[in-house]
């Protein structure tokens, strides 16, 4: 112990040196700092789900520990929940029952299946207004980076760390480096937030952000809605980054105002004052900087088995450059030189923590209105939360999807990962708005192509990869 009393730093009274957003948020959460040790960071919000938590709760029991701050902890069921009626898998039921028991025993608020608050953990945090600028947010899920869209420092953790946060509300962390990814200029028509992040990963690679807290900057990022920013931050981990962040601004504040857990009255004013002090100071230095010209971005489709193996929809399947690419082509059953538009998926999945929010459903529905899913294709929409589902139904989007031939499901992670009934069969090929095209990710032997909701919807109609303009 170095004797330094822990304080919650007001960014407005921090020392004069220019600082990045990530540094400001980090500094205000240091509970304990000593030479040769990782910083002990305070956690403002801990999101819990059924898959990565049971062993953590068992660990608490084993050591006779309690949950230190149930009021800063919230749980839901998302990864293995079925999204359609049918026989329930007994192993999954056991895991969900364990979460129910654990939340009851430790006093944690749970949004179980059947509750309007249920949904993908990274969709419900923002929709409740719990995700706010300047917070440290963790969850036993790598896509926790989503919450960075609000200017929060949010990152995924393993189950041992989940137990650590439950017991102490803190986490020892080595401070990562900082990295600026600046996307400057106007996005061309038809280029969405999903294309921005796929374009970034195709440039910097799946390991391009390892060891770094990324801040997305530039006019193209600022022009995105909160939903779009969440899509970008969500896939930070696919570039290996520890977290992704966007500085809070009026778009952020407008999204938050009036949400159930957003501050009100005088607290709202105090919060705004504080949030406005968080953006990176002029002249602050990043350890690494990457700049991308927004006008060069196009709609992207992945061809391989990691999210860096991506080309524009106007492109062709590339010649393999290494053994990994050869392996990927063999797995995907693709020939180099094949135009992306000549690839015919048989399954369309719209949903996930990347693209399961209301704006994503609007983007897809706008393409599908008055059109039909191509004969023989299986298409499904899985809203990111039950509230997104209700909102979409109020707007009549469910009718658009149903009339086009899509299945309209309940909320969950669904086909983003093969651990619930929504899966690809061996050899099946999908266009998916999710985040990972790893081998077998959507079911053993399944082949995944990542794309935006607009491209997924257009592809559903055309029967091959397409943009809305192609229709």
């Amino acid at each position, binding site marked *: 112990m170095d004797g330094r*009393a822990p304080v919650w730093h007001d960014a407005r009274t921090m020392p004069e040196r220019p600082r990045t957003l990530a540094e400001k948020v980090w500094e205000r959460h240091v509970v304990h700092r000593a030479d040769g040790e990782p910083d002990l960071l305070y956690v403002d919000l801990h999101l819990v789900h059924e898959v990565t938590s049971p062993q953590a709760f068992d660990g608490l029991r084993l050591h006779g520990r309690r949950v230190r701050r149930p009021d800063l902890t*919230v749980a839901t069921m998302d990864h293995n929940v079925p999204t359609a009626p049918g026989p329930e898998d007994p*192993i999954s039921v056991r895991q969900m029952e364990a979460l129910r028991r654990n939340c009851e025993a430790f006093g944690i608020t749970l949004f179980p299946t059947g509750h309007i608050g249920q949904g993908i953990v990274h969709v419900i945090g923002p929709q409740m207004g719990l995700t*706010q600028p300047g917070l440290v947010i963790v969850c036993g899920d790598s896509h926790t980076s989503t919450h960075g869209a609000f200017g929060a420092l949010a990152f995924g953790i*393993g189950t041992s*760390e989940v137990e650590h946060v439950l017991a102490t509300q803190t986490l020892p962390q080595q401070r990562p480096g900082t990295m600026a990814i600046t996307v400057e200029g106007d996005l061309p028509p038809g280029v969405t937030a999903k294309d921005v992040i796929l374009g970034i990963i195709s440039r910097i690679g799946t390991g391009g952000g390892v060891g770094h807290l990324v801040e997305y900057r530039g006019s193209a990022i600022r022009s995105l809605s909160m939903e779009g920013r969440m899509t970008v931050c969500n896939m930070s981990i696919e570039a290996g980054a520890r977290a992704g962040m966007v500085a809070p601004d009026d778009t952020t504040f407008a999204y938050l105002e009036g949400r159930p857990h957003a501050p009100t009255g005088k607290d709202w004013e105090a919060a705004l004052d504080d949030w406005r002090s968080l953006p990176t100071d002029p002249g602050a230095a990043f350890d690494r900087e990457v700049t991308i010209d927004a006008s060069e971005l196009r709609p992207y489709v992945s061809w391989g088995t*990691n999210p860096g193996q991506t080309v524009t929809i106007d492109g062709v399947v590339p010649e393999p450059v290494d053994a990994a690419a050869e*392996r990927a082509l063999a797995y995907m059953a693709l020939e180099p030189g094949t135009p992306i538009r000549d690839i015919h998926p048989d399954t369309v999945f719209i949903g996930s923590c990347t693209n399961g929010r209301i704006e994503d459903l609007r983007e897809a529905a706008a393409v599908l209105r008055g059109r039909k899913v191509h004969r023989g294709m299986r298409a499904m929409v899985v809203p990111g939360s039950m509230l997104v589902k209700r909102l979409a139904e109020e707007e009549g989007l469910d009718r658009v999807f149903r009339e086009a031939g899509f299945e309209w499901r309940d909320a969950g992670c669904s086909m983003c990962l093969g651990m619930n009934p929504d899966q690809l069969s061996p050899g099946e090929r999908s266009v998916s708005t999710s985040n990972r095209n790893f081998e*077998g990710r959507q079911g053993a032997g399944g082949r995944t192509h990542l794309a935006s909701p607009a491209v997924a919807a257009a592809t559903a109609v055309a029967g091959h990869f397409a943009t809305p303009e192609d229709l």
Partner: protein
Amino acid sequence: MQPYRRHRGRAVPLDRSDVDTDQIIPAEHLRRIERTGFGPFLFAAWRKDPSFVLNDPGFEGATILLTGPNFGCGSSREHAVWALEDAGFRTVIAPSFADIFRNNCTKVGLLPVELPAETVRALMAAVEAEPGTELTVDLEAKTVTGAGILATFGIDGFTRWRLLEGLDDIGLSLRHEREIEAYERARPARLPTVG
């Protein structure tokens, strides 16, 4: 956590880059609520291929995995580490690791050793040429030796100490409970709560 000081064992070469946690343990096997029993599902999809290196009897009983860069990328599932541990592995040697996987390893006591790509390639070549070759990983000396190769690796001092002693992270952090309490008193009341 079981302490890690010095480990001698057979190494198996998995010459692939960007091995993601969905390959290490596919999602369908994550539904167990126990911390043990994941070993049989390690690399479940790849193991269906009889020519997969972990099916090679020459490498049976390996406890050291030699592999390519960005090992453990993808999801945060600690089950990937549990599966490796449950299958008998004590060390993974790679040119680089994904951040969350590396963190998870050090919480469980599976040692992630980062060595230059050419050193890992040399170790792989030696082990492929002579399956059954044993390597010694010494965390105190921060060295990997065997097959005529001596390599030193870096690891932060705190993590090394914790692994050498087999210390529980939670216990270490709870030594700072007074500071946690003081911090909580200073947090603004307007910050969100769930209840």
